[in-house]
């Protein structure tokens, strides 16, 4: 970035051969290179911000279909009536002020050969490096009853924070006391491992206060509670005793929207409010771009750079990736991957070496009621021999118990992650 640094890099290139600057070939008008980011969630927004913070001469464009950012972390609190959607809805103006171009549009095609992204509006954007952070899309193929838009409006997932969160809260508010809330959790891997169980706590917290005769039936496709099991069970068997009927191995067969029934392989469960989270895959643009490498659902990456193992020059972030062992799909993980990616993209554009041993860390808080939270944490170091990011043994762990202190940390964590992405 400084003259000295530039001269140094040039000198390095001269002394080590032309291949050292191969990464600079095809650079666009900006001296720092052009980076296009698909998706302005935790992954994409944080990557865009750090490209600007760490290499201000980079030309950064984020393609985002929504006008505002609605945070998935803390969104279960909206369902519990413990916060309002406005408190978790944030603007892209902070990124704009930093010089990031925010294009409200949708990426419909990637031409990696021509290094171009085509948008729904018909516009085309050129890039030197592309970062794809599309989040998840839902797989409705195996749920015939939920295929229509009308059915999807009645039986919500609320697994992307925003209008669905508000709509599910309204359904809960409209439900009579004594009603039954039926909640289906898909087989892992899914976005936010502890999220479903936090949701159960939040709905229970609301029922306890406003509709104490109501019940919650949890139909979990998994054989057991996926994350923070002991901590959630302490709440379910403690303050919510008798309210929650947890049924593991509940594989979803279909949903009958008219009869308000969730159909399992051997059983049907009727409810007053149904909330079905379908299985998901990397966002659709990842499929179109040829980035999916695992189980027809997820994108394999090089964990030093987050570059796709399938398509050169294209990096993939966050929930869309084939997660490394013990790595969750979370906003916190997206934050970390975004910064590893931003640093690597800057290095690659400048023809400099990338960091050989990146480290990522996960911290996820879940609220068990309106004030008390629990955490899960892990640290992931890159292992050069295994060419894989590995969770460090002896590190990470869980809260001893839920506490208001951790509830305070949880809000601080959310506000700092929001600031780190959008401030």
């Amino acid at each position: 970035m400084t003259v000295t640094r530039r001269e140094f890099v040039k000198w390095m290139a001269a002394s080590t051969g032309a291949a050292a600057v191969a990464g600079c070939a095809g650079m666009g008008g900006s001296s720092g290179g052009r980076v296009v980011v698909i998706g302005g969630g935790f992954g994409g927004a944080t990557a865009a911000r750090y490209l600007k913070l760490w290499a201000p001469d980079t030309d950064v464009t984020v393609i985002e279909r929504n006008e505002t950012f609605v945070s998935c972390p803390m969104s279960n609190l909206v369902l519990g009536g413990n916060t309002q959607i406005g408190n978790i809805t944030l603007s892209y103006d902070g990124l704009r002020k930093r010089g990031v171009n925010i294009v409200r549009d949708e990426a419909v095609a990637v031409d990696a050969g021509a290094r171009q992204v085509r948008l729904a509006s018909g516009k085309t954007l050129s890039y030197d490096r592309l970062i794809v952070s599309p989040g998840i899309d839902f797989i409705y193929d195996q749920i015939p009853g939920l295929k229509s838009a009308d059915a999807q409006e009645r039986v919500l997932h609320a697994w992307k924070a925003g209008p669905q969160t508000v709509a599910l809260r309204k359904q809960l508010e409209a439900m009579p006391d004594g009603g039954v809330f039926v909640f289906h959790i898909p087989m892992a891997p899914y976005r936010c491992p502890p999220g479903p169980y936090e949701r159960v706590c939040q709905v229970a917290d609301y029922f306890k206060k406003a509709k104490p005769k109501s019940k919650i039936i949890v139909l979990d496709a998994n054989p057991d509670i996926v994350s923070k099991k002991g901590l959630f069970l302490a709440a379910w068997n403690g303050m919510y005793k008798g309210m929650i009927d947890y049924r593991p191995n509940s594989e979803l067969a279909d949903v009958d929207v008219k009869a308000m029934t969730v159909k399992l392989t051997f059983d049907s469960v009727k409810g007053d409010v149904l909330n079905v989270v379908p299985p998901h895959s990397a966002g659709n643009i990842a499929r179109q771009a040829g980035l999916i490498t695992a189980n027809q659902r997820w994108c394999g990456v090089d964990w030093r750079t987050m570059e796709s193992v399938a398509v050169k020059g294209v990096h993939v972030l966050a929930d869309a990736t084939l997660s490394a062992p013990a790595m969750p799909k979370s906003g916190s993980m997206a934050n970390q991957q975004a910064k590893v990616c931003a640093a690597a993209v800057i290095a690659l554009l400048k023809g400099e070496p990338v960091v050989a041993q990146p480290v990522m860390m996960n911290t996820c808080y879940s609220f068990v009621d309106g004030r008390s939270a629990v955490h899960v944490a892990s640290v992931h170091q890159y292992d050069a021999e295994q060419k894989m990011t590995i969770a460090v043994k002896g590190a990470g762990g869980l809260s001893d118990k839920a506490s208001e202190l951790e509830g305070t940390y949880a809000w601080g964590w959310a506000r700092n992650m929001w600031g780190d992405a959008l401030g």
Partner: protein
Amino acid sequence: MTSAIPRTGAWCAGLALAAAVAAPVAAQEQAAYARNLAANCFACHGTDGRSVDGVPPSIAGQNKDYMLQVMKDFKANKRPATVMGQQARGYTDEQLELIAGYFAGMKAGSADPAPSARGGN
């Protein structure tokens, strides 16, 4: 491309490089590595260690030796914590020293919170 530039991997293991060209590269790479490692902490402690509401605490401008000792105490379970011990145990002492050095070099100051979509913060 990376194969053409002297790939170290060595500097992160703390080994000295013999070639004359290696010194500035090692210093530059070490600074980048320190920044990248410290960036992990930003998620909870704010960008460059400036926390939006001061909770978890701001760590920008913290004394390096003090911070390193605190991290080692967290790591050894000598200092009570909810999450910090669990995180500190994921890093080598050399990595913790780079992290402490990075935050010591940051100026304490106010954070840049994400703007609310309703205006204001």
